């Protein structure tokens, strides 16, 4: 049983092709800009069986075409790694392409078992600077950096994802540091710049939380271009989502 927050049957931003995106409930980070704040709390979500998920994927198989498949996102999907293992195993056996969208903070035997059945890890690096990381997410980035070292050691393909928050994570110096740190990882196929947006802000109000980035506006095209230009020096494939 997985605790599922919601489902997007036409996912076009979380991995290659058209994807069934399963958003799992619960997260161990509390990012200031989280667009799915209602997925953070561990409670809630609807209990969903392996069979239900496999059957959902089968119904959508035709839509996946040559590239698509199933993505587990959240929340932090690996918080439910133990329950996720049989699901990804069954999906993999049925021939589906699997992505996991994670913050990389958890690495245990269950996580390793999930990764065995995963084709691409969409790894969200929130910040390269440890203090800034702490400020943005409430946690240090040590685990995330260790996680990607592990992924390199098992040759697991990675798409790095980086949310560009004006004034928080778009400092050129940090972008250069990010590039320098990861430029020699052979398993990183792509870097995706995720523009910051305020679309999730209303959820905070609904939940009675304070939205701390009220003063932050969406990126200007110039800000996006500037970040792109820096990161393009380090990564062959950079896209702005």
């Amino acid at each position: 049983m997985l605790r599922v927050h919601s489902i997007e049957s036409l996912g076009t931003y979380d991995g290659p092709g058209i994807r069934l995106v399963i958003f799992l409930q619960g997260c161990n980070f509390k990012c200031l800009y989280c667009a799915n704040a209602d997925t953070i709390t561990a409670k809630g979500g609807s209990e969903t069986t392996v069979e239900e998920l496999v059957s959902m994927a089968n119904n959508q198989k035709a839509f996946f075409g040559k590239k698509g498949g199933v993505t587990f996102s959240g929340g932090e999907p690996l918080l439910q790694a133990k329950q996720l293992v049989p699901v990804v195993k069954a999906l993999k056996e049925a021939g589906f392409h699997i992505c996991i969208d994670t913050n990389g903070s958890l690495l245990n035997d269950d996580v390793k078992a999930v990764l065995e059945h995963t084709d691409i890890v969409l790894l969200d690096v929130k910040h390269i600077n440890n203090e800034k990381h702490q400020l943005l997410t409430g946690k240090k980035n040590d685990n995330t950096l260790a996680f990607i070292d592990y992924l390199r050691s098992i040759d697991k393909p990675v798409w790095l994802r980086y949310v560009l928050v004006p004034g928080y994570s778009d400092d050129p110096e940090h972008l250069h540091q990010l590039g320098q740190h990861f430029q020699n990882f052979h398993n990183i196929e792509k870097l995706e710049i995720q523009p910051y947006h305020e679309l999730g802000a209303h959820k905070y109000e609904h939940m009675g939380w304070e939205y701390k980035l009220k003063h932050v506006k969406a990126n200007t095209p110039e800000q996006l271009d500037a970040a792109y230009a820096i990161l393009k020096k380090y990564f062959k494939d950079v896209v702005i989502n």
Partner: protein
Amino acid sequence: MSKINETFVKGAWNEQVNVRDFVQKNITPYDGDSSFLCGPTDRTKKLWDICLEAIKEETANNGVRSIDPEVVSSITSHEAGYIQKDLELIVGLQTDELLKRAMKPYGGIAVVEKACREQGLEVSDRVKDIFRNYAKTHNDGVFDVYTEEIRKYRSLGFLTGLPDNYARGRIIGDYRRLALYGIDRLVEAKKADLVNLLGPMSDDKIRLREEVAEQIKALIQIKELGNKYGLDLSRPAESAQEAVQWVYMAYLAAVKEQDGAAMSLGNVSSFLDIYMEYDLAQGNITEELAQEFIDQFVMKLRVVRHLRMNAYNEIFAGDPTWVTEAIGGKLMDGRHKITKTSYRFLQTLYNLGPSPEPNMTVLWSNSLPENFKAFCAQVSIDTSSIQYENDDLMTQTRNSDDYGIACCVSFQEIGKHIQFFGARTNLAKALLLAINGGRCEMSGKLIVEGIPPLKSDKLDFDEVMANYKIAMKEVARVYNESMNIIHYMHDKYYYEKAQMAFVDTNPRVNLAYGMAGLSIVADSLSAIKHANVTVVRNEEGLSSEFLIDGEFPCYGNDDDRVDNLAVDVSTHFNQLLSGLQVYKNAEPTMSILTITSNVVYGLKTGATPDGRAKGVPFAPGANPMHGRDKNGAIASLNSVAKLDYKNALDGISNTFSIIPKSLGADAETRSENLVTMMDAYFSKDAHHLNVNVLNRELLEDAMENPNEYPQLTIRVSGYAVNFVRLTREQQLEVISRSFHSNM
């Protein structure tokens, strides 16, 4: 034999009227990409600017530029009309002036008088005198024989949009025949048919002899129509330009004689391509000129107009004419029918800008060339002007590879098959009969006898379902009776002689019934089955509201528990209709389609057990109800794909609206994802898909600033409209629909 016809590959088409055989033998399928296409010429641009200016005047003048209140329209009623003669390569207008609308009072004189009066004009005394005192109309005939029961079903909104005061349309002539054979040869063939229609002289035989005689007269008038424009239509077309011109003249005759709700063009592009290929190979024309012929042809199709009264707009919003052209598809022998002229038709959406007409319909097969699929997806993303239908499904189920789309979504074999338009019945309102002892929930009038009152106001699924089946059976019976009357009278008083002149003598007929409100019915039954639903009744004992306790699955989320209810109801109703005797032994078919009547149906329907409040618009066609499809676009498509085409052979319409970003981050990904989605949707035997790729904000801005969006086009149920021509209610309804967004 004409010179050009001598050069074509011979076959059965030489001996008999058989355009399909000609196309099969001579088509040049094209696998390449769109890079050969040309932009508009200066001539085309100038002409289209004149049209746009005239359309602007039309919009500013209450939607009508001018009306001829003196002359009753016929094939030969008006002198030649031009946009600007020296620029026109393809000529012909319905009247002697651009966008001037003509009277066609055979459908009903009162409607014509009303339409004129709404524009501040009076029908001439002479025409009034003739149609009030001497000539009988279709409308007169129908109301002479309508039963009290039919009148009640009609006025209370159980049956809506019946073609009893306007022309039924839907018939598609094989307009290609004029180009391939010329009038003289076609007259000869019809005369030969007439000679063989011998006794015993039954009603059917007498009627058919009269029909063929009328068709022959129409052909002779079409020759005369050609003469007015200096064209010798007695002979076959001798060039690409003439082929386009001849086909257009045949179609023009039809829209001069009839004002049918939908008057499709058929599938002329692959046919015309044969002439284009010939002239290009001979060096007679350039690609630029080939495109210009199509641009100018399409321009003419865009300015077809009928005189309608304002009330008509409630059901068929935005002044549509449904000049539906079916593009592509495959031949039974496995080759595809994509030609360069398929591309040229779609290219008009760039050369002249987006437009609802002609209603471009791509017949999609998973094995069409990838180049063509990618081009279609791009055109959809750029213009939201195309709809798609499942060619593999239709070819196999209907056993023909030479068909067009009648009206919105309905298969019709060209020249062999016609259909009688049946409008639709409101099955959501019929469900309320089951809950109100057979009484109309709004008026309290008894509609269906024999439905017992419910044992309890806490609804029981089996009890409601049993009552609903009684209601559906009676609704089907009355619906069928109205259809038989309408089509009998239409044949008698407003026979489509120009179109039928281009159809085989004694063709097969479909009676195209329709149903509306399917998603509401499915969700209501799901609520009754899976949650606790209690009726709240007013002082007359009629349902006024429903209280729902608990959760229930909604149609549109790929959940069999509710999707199967939609399948069961549509199948059941279709089977009820199939068991009833039809005029002219037509074969009954049914659509799940609403046009834009989903808004007016909503107004005429009280609160429903799914929680929908009284008066709220229905979802269009077979779409899930707005906002209830929670799992994204594909789950929604999967639900609709479960509906069985074999039990809805007139078509299952699904309107899909998505914001551009949801298809992907960049242009290439968006087009690729759209192609993958359509391949997948149709691989599940789904029938039809309207594709809109638009931002909601754009529509909101267009509502406020209509003058800045004269050509903004949006697909609705089975056709497309200029968004700014919709009424405010309809605009709001379109905006309130699910715009799939995964952001």
